[in-house]
């Protein structure tokens, strides 16, 4: 690609370099959080994605979160319609989106006010705001602008009005198609980002658009860079630590897809659903290079049916969905459990119930993932906590599904799915791959469900094995797969299917405790909240509070030793992104209190009075809010 040569030749000069006489103030920080926010369709997300990727590639720790309106095309200049990206980056590893934004580029004052109402901005945030609205032809908009500025003045923000529209019009006729690159240039100069890398990243983003589009976007980015250099009097410096460890940068959905490929799974059968769909987009782009295929079925039910069929035939398949899709698949998941067909189901959780909050994060599918099927359908549920774990969990999930002939549900969420984080490049191992189907003849005197009475495990048979033909059925059956309604057969089948999961539990190790092994409060979490919880625990410990945390990756079966771990703490509390009543809410008693979903599971399985603090804000939890909850619970002082 010509980009690299071109970029290298221009790097020394730099856009607008040398035009400023007085040096800017350098704000040197170990980390900072940047937001780019615009109306939907103005490209702020793309700007943030490029900026986040460049930060990661420069060696910074990074964690990005997409700011996505609930509607596809919300009204312009509306507080609820803000779209963009939030990038937290630092010298060390970044594990969550943090508390508040330090620097924001906003394309209009209304989306900015929307972010402020959500408490997204730090009190001393720096705000770069497009000022085109001050002279807008529509007087109502001018009034809104004036009102917005008054509102902003109530805070301690450092506001810089930027003639983004005016500057972009020098380059493009429609600034809506380019302002994002101008904003990228602003951020590049302020945060001293590598312009070579930015050009390369722009080239990657617009790789299908041709040279002219690439050039125009680079020109806009350079214009933003030059304007900032000429007009701004501050820069933010976040040092990087060079590392020899090669890293990859991707979001959780891409990591899931890549992990599935690494695990040798060749069929992803799914139906598009937010926020899982981008996984299928990624897989569709790359699968043919690895001999796999994405099958887009006519609906969620058909998608899981196809996956079960492929697994039944010998190739462990998977389906990716989100909450509403998981609900639709439940009957077929029961079938897979009954048939003892290995299957991997990825549930990218979003807000619910019903269609709920399609683009927003939540952890409210835990119980339905564990217990959503009718009848007794024991299976496995696990939850990766990072983008890196999204990748690696698929390998483990397939292996467990195969070894235990069961369904493994992998619970991710919208935060993991759309956020980007750098992590060490996986060292691929051929043994991660599923072995090819072997079809040796089988002894006709051995039943198809040749359950080991101790473990419940039995070798899987595949269509085509000489002597191995049997009728697979979702009806209650005996070891010969013959329909059997007699009490003993159903009791035995249920026992064997349950026993397997208990056996898996026996192979698990107790979870690690983050922090001291004992103390006043143990915070228990699962999934994408790990980074925020551990950061909150760090801060609490720095305040002298006796707090530790424990993050669970196996939800069903639970890792062993939990009761013993809990016994070493005065109080145990889960922190989750699903709904729970607060103990002091009206009408709420200890008996009727709705608890967070993991808390319910833990209480049932350990008989420990596990407390919970949970929220459903439609966005990731902030470590600061978790810290407040920790303080509050400790102040309550109740003992387990």
């Amino acid at each position, binding site marked *: 690609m010509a980009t690299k040569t071109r970029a290298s030749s221009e790097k020394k000069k730099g856009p607008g370099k040398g035009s400023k006489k007085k040096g800017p103030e350098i704000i040197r920080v170990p980390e900072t959080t940047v937001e780019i926010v615009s109306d939907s369709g103005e490209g702020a997300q793309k700007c943030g994605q490029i900026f986040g990727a460049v930060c990661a590639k420069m060696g910074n720790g990074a964690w990005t979160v997409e700011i996505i309106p609930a509607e596809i095309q919300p009204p312009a200049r509306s507080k609820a319609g803000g779209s963009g990206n939030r990038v937290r980056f630092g010298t060390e590893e970044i594990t969550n989106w943090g508390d508040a934004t330090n620097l924001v580029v906003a394309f209009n004052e209304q989306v900015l006010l929307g972010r402020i109402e959500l408490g997204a901005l730090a009190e001393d945030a720096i705000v770069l705001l497009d000022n085109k609205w001050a002279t807008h032809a529509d007087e109502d908009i001018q009034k809104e602008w004036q009102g917005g500025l008054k509102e902003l003045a109530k805070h301690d923000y450092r506001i810089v009005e930027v003639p983004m529209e005016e500057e972009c019009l020098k380059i493009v006729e429609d600034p809506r198609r380019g302002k994002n690159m101008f904003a990228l240039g602003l951020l590049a100069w302020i945060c001293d980002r590598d312009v070579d890398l930015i050009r390369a990243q722009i080239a990657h983003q617009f790789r299908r658009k041709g040279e002219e589009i690439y050039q125009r976007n680079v020109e806009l980015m350079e214009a933003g860079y030059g304007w900032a250099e000429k007009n701004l009097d501050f820069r933010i410096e976040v040092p990087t630590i060079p590392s020899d460890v090669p890293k990859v940068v991707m979001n959780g959905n891409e990591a899931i897809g890549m992990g599935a490929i690494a*695990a040798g799974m060749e069929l992803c059968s799914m139906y598009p659903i937010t926020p899982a769909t981008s996984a299928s987009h990624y897989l569709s782009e790359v699968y043919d290079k690895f001999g796999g295929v994405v099958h887009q079925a006519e609906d969620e039910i058909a998608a899981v049916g196809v996956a079960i069929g492929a697994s039944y035939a010998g190739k462990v398949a998977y389906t990716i969905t989100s909450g509403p899709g998981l609900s639709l698949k439940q009957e077929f998941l029961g079938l897979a459990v009954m048939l003892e067909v290995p299957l991997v189901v990825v549930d990218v959780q979003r807000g619910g119930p019903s269609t709920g909050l399609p683009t927003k994060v939540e952890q409210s599918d835990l119980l339905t993932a564990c217990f959503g099927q009718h009848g007794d359908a024991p299976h496995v549920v696990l939850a*990766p906590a990072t983008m890196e*774990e999204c990748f*690696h*969990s698929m*390998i*483990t999930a397939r*292996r*467990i599904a195969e*070894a*235990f002939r069961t369904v493994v549900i992998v619970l991710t969420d919208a935060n993991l799915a759309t956020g980007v984080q750098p992590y060490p490049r*996986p060292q691929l*191992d051929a*043994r*991660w791959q599923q*072995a*090819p*189907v*072997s*079809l*040796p*003849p089988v002894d006709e005197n051995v039943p198809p469900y040749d359950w*080991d009475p101790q*473990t419940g*495990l*039995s*070798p899987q048979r595949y269509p085509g094995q000489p002597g191995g033909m049997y009728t697979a059925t979702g009806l209650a059956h005996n070891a010969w797969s013959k329909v059997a309604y007699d009490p003993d057969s159903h009791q035995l089948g249920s026992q064997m299917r349950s026993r397997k999961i208990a*056996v898996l539990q*026996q*192979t*698990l*190790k107790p*979870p*690690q405790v983050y922090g001291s092994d004992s103390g006043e409060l143990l915070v228990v979490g699962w999934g994408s909240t790990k980074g925020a919880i551990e950061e909150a625990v760090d801060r609490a410990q720095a305040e002298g509070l006796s707090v530790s945390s424990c993050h669970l*990756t*196996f939800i069903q079966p639970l*890792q062993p030793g939990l009761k013993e771990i809990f016994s070493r703490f005065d109080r145990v509390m889960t922190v989750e992104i699903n709904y729970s009543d607060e103990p002091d809410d009206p009408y709420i008693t200890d008996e009727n209190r709705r608890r967070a979903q993991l808390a319910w599971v833990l209480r049932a399985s350990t008989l420990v009075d596990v407390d919970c603090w949970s929220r459903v804000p439609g966005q990731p939890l902030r470590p600061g809010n978790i810290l407040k909850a920790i303080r509050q619970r400790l102040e309550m002082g109740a003992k387990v």
Partner: protein
Amino acid sequence: MPSESDPRVEKALSALAGPIELYRSAVVTTVEEVRGYLATHRSEDEASDGGVAAGLGVFAAGRIDFERFANLTTSATLEGDPDTLGKVEKAYDILRGISSGGEDAFCVRVKPGGRLREAVADRLAEIGRGFAAARLAGMARAGSLNSKNEDKLLAPLGFERWNQAERRLAPPLVVELEGAGLHAGDLAEFLDGNIKIVLVVSGDVAPAPLVRLITPSTFVLQTAAGAGLERFAATEGPAVAALMPESAAQFIHDPAAGSSPAARLELISFPEQSPKNAVGGMSVRQQLDELEQLKTLAGGPSVDAEGEEGAAPAAGPVATKVDKLAAWLLSQADLSDAG
């Protein structure tokens, strides 16, 4: 490019791309099946702690007790004895070697003075090693690999020892040879199953040597420019073709075209010149016999060669203009050096 000199070899390989791909697919499938067998039977690897740890991946590290996992789940898998696994691994190596081979594997060159039969037999026997390896793996999978002599199975396996299933899977061969070495009878024993042999002939050659190979179920093609190769490649059953000089007879015998010889045989062109010299031990008389046989098959009743000394034996009345022309040509034949 297997042949540096004759572009017709590339042409033949191109026409045979489909059968080659089918064969390769079969080999690759077998390789995968054997790999699957090994993966599920290597007790010291896959089912061991280390194998389990590797198979479960990084996510499981620190969360799963690999030793316990191996102990509890191994009972549901099959274990193979080391001796058997060793043999299967050898078979696996052979199959992998075959699957990764290039187009050279499908090309043979008969050295001047060499025998067509030996060249083809040797190459097919080498290909047969793959079938032998697959047989051994199959025996292992069936649990019947218990003799001490199975190693011999991994030696080259001559075509005469291929079973019907293997003959149906036979890959195509492109054979370069000089016309003097084209003794069609050398190929007769190999024309079974789904085998396809293309002869790329250079130099002097008899005008219709492949006529001797026409049987009801064998596709036989003589062509100069390659016409008919697509049909040849697509045919089910044994097939032989020769890319010949322009002067040779050109015809297609397609078993699928009809039930009678005349219906199956399409005579595209007939030599303008009668053979005048023996070629590679084939006398003019023999060559004329082949031409006569061709006409007979193509047209039913044969040429009336009355009063013509040395003419091919009559087999019936003249039926067509082509037959009349052929009869005249035969009458002009110089049989003085007939052997």
